């Protein structure tokens, strides 16, 4: 396929009605991708947020929170995904979800921890002086002030998870990556590039949605990105 005709072929593939129906159609694969990612993100938040908020509140475990990010960056997601898939978990959705959770944790943990730690100590002291209990300080002072960074962490994790879910298709995990995988398998460039377009569109949409959400919740947003990594 020549590069010039590639755009036309991709447009044809994406607008072909047959590709929008059935169990391996675009809507089903998009839904799979979102369910995989959403479930994993929920688990990541449930695991990492309480831990990070608590560690930040008592002011301990900083080295852990930071190192988790450094380790997460050095360990290839693809390698872990393959290791899980040829290991006890086997090919499929389980291996994908475990990898998604493992690599979603670092940004949430680090950003939420730093968010709580960076809350002005004078403010916390003032809250304590007013007679607030530790729980009230966390709930009413530290949590709201740490919210921007907490959201940044969740956003980074969401984008990370969507990217990893794409790789999950290579261990039979479902989702939009299946089109890319199938495109390679059939040497069908139109399907391959269309899959890439769909994946990129989904990732950018989610990133954009978080951007809007963050602007809504905090107009003076701190633009800190404490856990940059890519899959």
């Amino acid at each position: 396929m020549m590069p010039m005709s590639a755009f036309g072929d991709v447009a044809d593939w994406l607008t072909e009605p047959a590709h929008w129906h059935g169990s391996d159609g675009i809507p089903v694969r998009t839904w799979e991708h979102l369910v995989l990612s959403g479930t994993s993100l929920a688990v990541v938040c449930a695991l990492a947020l309480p831990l990070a908020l608590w560690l930040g509140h008592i002011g301990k475990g900083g080295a852990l929170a930071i190192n988790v990010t450094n380790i997460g960056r050095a360990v290839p997601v693809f390698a872990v995904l393959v290791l899980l898939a040829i290991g006890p978990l086997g090919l499929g959705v389980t291996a994908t979800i475990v990898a998604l959770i493992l690599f979603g944790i670092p940004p949430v943990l680090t950003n939420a921890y730093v968010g709580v730690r960076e809350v002005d100590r004078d403010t916390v002291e003032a809250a304590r002086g007013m007679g607030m209990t530790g729980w009230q300080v966390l709930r009413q002072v530290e949590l709201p002030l740490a919210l921007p960074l907490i959201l940044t962490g969740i956003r980074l994790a969401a984008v990370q998870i969507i990217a990893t879910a794409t790789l999950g298709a290579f261990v039979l995990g479902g989702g939009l990556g299946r089109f890319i995988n199938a495109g390679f398998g059939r040497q069908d460039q139109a399907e391959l590039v269309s899959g890439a377009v769909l994946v990129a569109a989904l990732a950018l949409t989610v990133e954009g949605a978080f951007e809007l959400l963050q602007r809504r919740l905090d107009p003076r947003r701190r633009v800190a990105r404490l856990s940059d990594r890519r899959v």
Partner: protein
Amino acid sequence: MRPLSTGCLVRNDWICGEYLRSRRSELQDALIQHITLTVVAVLVGLVVAIPLAILARRLRLTQLILGAATVIYTIPSVALFSFFIPFTGISATTVAIGLVLYSLTVLVRNVVAGLDAVPDDVVEAARGMGMGPTRLMVRVQLPLALPAIMAGVRIATVSTISLTTVGGIINYGGLGNLIFGGLQTTFRAQVITASVLCVVLAITADLVLLVVQRTITPWQRVAAR
């Protein structure tokens, strides 16, 4: 039926000395490809990022450039590699372009941040001494931005080493070739060995760059980090 041989390769063990011995040259080739792709991606990224950051600041386009960087950064790597296949085919170039784009997004952000952090009075003083814009940049601003730039180089290098593995899907991913190949043949020793080598490579590269950073920015040692 029991296998005729009881070697660890036959048993498909995770840890297998026999694998290390018999596939030594294959591992070496993969490692060399991995290092080459990483070095090319980070060096090309740096060579493009520095002028791009300077230009962006001069034309007051930093927001635009950083926005574009975020967009590229958000695209998953398999997708980014796939976009270039119609143009550069299944080749090392395809993977290298993708890796350059990712390292570029990290580096341009850090170069901009580093240049922004140079104190205004230092720049004013240098101007007052009669320095032109080029000498000011080369002799004052870039050296002062070096710690931030080096921090970017370290992040870009470690991330690139990890990302290169994805190139294994099209057989140009260094150690990733062995990981993807091992997935298709369920070859445990190969996958774990390549994965561990990958992590070791990332840690080694980070330490080497830390030493480089300390050597070229001796004044930073005073400010304990």
